[in-house]
């Protein structure tokens, strides 16, 4: 027995921030440099009042309907986000009501960002394999644009908002499913991506709204997301390939065995360099960030959804997913794509604010 992904869908907010928009804010020269580095031309952003939970509910509704899943069948919901609706209760519980799920359903949040997809997959895999749950709904997403200062060029130019819904179930198909997981953390790097005044350690006060401008001209405050770009780049460039090599070795595989290598869509240059370090040939690479930006925790599942939709995954394909981000944390998983699925997910949904909200 193993577990498989039986469906993925994603939802994008209706707003856009293009490089033209950003050039008005930061200057054309600066944006051209960043865009060459990042490979990003446009980012989808949610307006005020639209949250990651809204986008996730939208994706989940579409997915459950498309797959003909009865609401009572879902017995595990994991909402992975760092922009939850509330600190208390878990947003997964709020979504439980919105999606009309049955009460025999475990719901909880995971507080991780860009690295979250392998963690949610691994957690659900454990629940399903142990029999604690039978049909898992994983919701990954962030409205990260809401916690980025508009004057922070280093982050405002990278990130977009999105949310995904992924279904997981058990399978008896021989060979299909998860080949392995490798999850890890370097806690010494927690300061490199942080929102200093966002919790109990440093509650929000008038003083934490105070804005400062750093040596690179980025405006920020303790209530906004902050990133040490050089440290994160170094981590991504050197630690991530090492972790991927370790995951392959643990599964007694090499890059030659893998059909598709999917990397968290942090930025194009960084991913190019990771692919190069691992000697991943072009036909095994796949990108999806030019028009959606770095979508934080939604990035990897969205990438998988698009790869599936565009025919890059076939029955029996061996796909490696590597996601990495704040913590600093990382997760790698290798999946043998099943033969039994009905087909790829259809086109993504654009979130419309007129959709009724129950919370």
């Amino acid at each position, binding site marked *: 027995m193993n577990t498989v992904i039986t469906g993925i869908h994603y939802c994008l907010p209706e707003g856009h921030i293009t490089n033209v928009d950003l050039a008005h804010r930061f200057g054309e020269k600066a944006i051209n440099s960043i865009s060459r*580095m990042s490979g990003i031309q446009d980012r989808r952003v949610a307006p005020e009042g639209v949250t990651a939970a809204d986008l996730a509910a939208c994706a989940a509704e579409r997915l459950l309907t498309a797959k003909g899943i009865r609401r009572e069948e879902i017995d595990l919901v994991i909402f992975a986000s760092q922009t939850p609706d509330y600190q208390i209760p878990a947003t997964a519980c709020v979504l439980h009501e919105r999606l009309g799920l049955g009460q025999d359903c475990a719901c909880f949040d995971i507080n991780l960002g860009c690295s979250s997809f392998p963690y949610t997959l691994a957690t659900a895999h454990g629940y399903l394999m142990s029999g604690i749950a039978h049909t898992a709904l994983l919701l990954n997403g962030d409205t990260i644009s809401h916690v980025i200062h508009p004057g922070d060029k*280093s982050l405002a130019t990278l990130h977009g908002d999105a949310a995904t819904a992924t279904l997981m179930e058990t399978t008896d198909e021989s060979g299909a499913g998860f080949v392995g997981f490798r999850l890890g953390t370097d806690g010494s790097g927690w300061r490199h991506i942080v929102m200093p005044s966002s919790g109990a350690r440093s509650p929000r006060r008038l003083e934490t709204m105070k804005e400062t401008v750093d040596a690179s001209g980025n405006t920020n405050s303790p209530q906004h997301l902050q990133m*040490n770009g050089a*440290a994160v*780049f170094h981590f991504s*460039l050197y630690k991530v390939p090492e972790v991927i090599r370790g995951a392959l070795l643990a599964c007694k595989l090499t890059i030659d065995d893998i059909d598709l290598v999917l990397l968290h869509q942090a930025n194009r*240059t960084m991913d190019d360099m990771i692919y190069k370090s691992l000697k991943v040939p072009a036909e095994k690479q796949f990108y999806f960030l030019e028009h959606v930006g770095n979508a934080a925790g939604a990035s990897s599942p969205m990438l998988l959804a698009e790869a599936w939709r565009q025919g890059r995954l076939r029955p029996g394909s061996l796909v490696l997913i590597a996601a990495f981000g704040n913590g600093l944390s990382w997760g790698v998983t290798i999946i043998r794509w099943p033969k039994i699925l009905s087909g790829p997910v259809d086109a993504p949904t654009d979130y419309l604010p007129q959709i009724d909200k129950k919370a």
Partner: protein
Amino acid sequence: MTKSELYAEIEGILDVKSGSIRGDERLADTGRWDSLSAVMFMAMASEKLGQEISPGDLAKCSTVADLEALFGNKVQ
């Protein structure tokens, strides 16, 4: 890599006129050295010279000559 090739790379990263870098410039005084430049420099070092440059290495550099010194005899 030659010194002039390295300086050409640095000119590209700082987006300054070709041939304008002498080596004694203080990075802070160029008005162009920022977090993005640091990342681009690290990427260039890895791609073109196969050298790992850490954020700690960069933090110790205050001039273009300091950046050059990071490469030792890989730049001549």
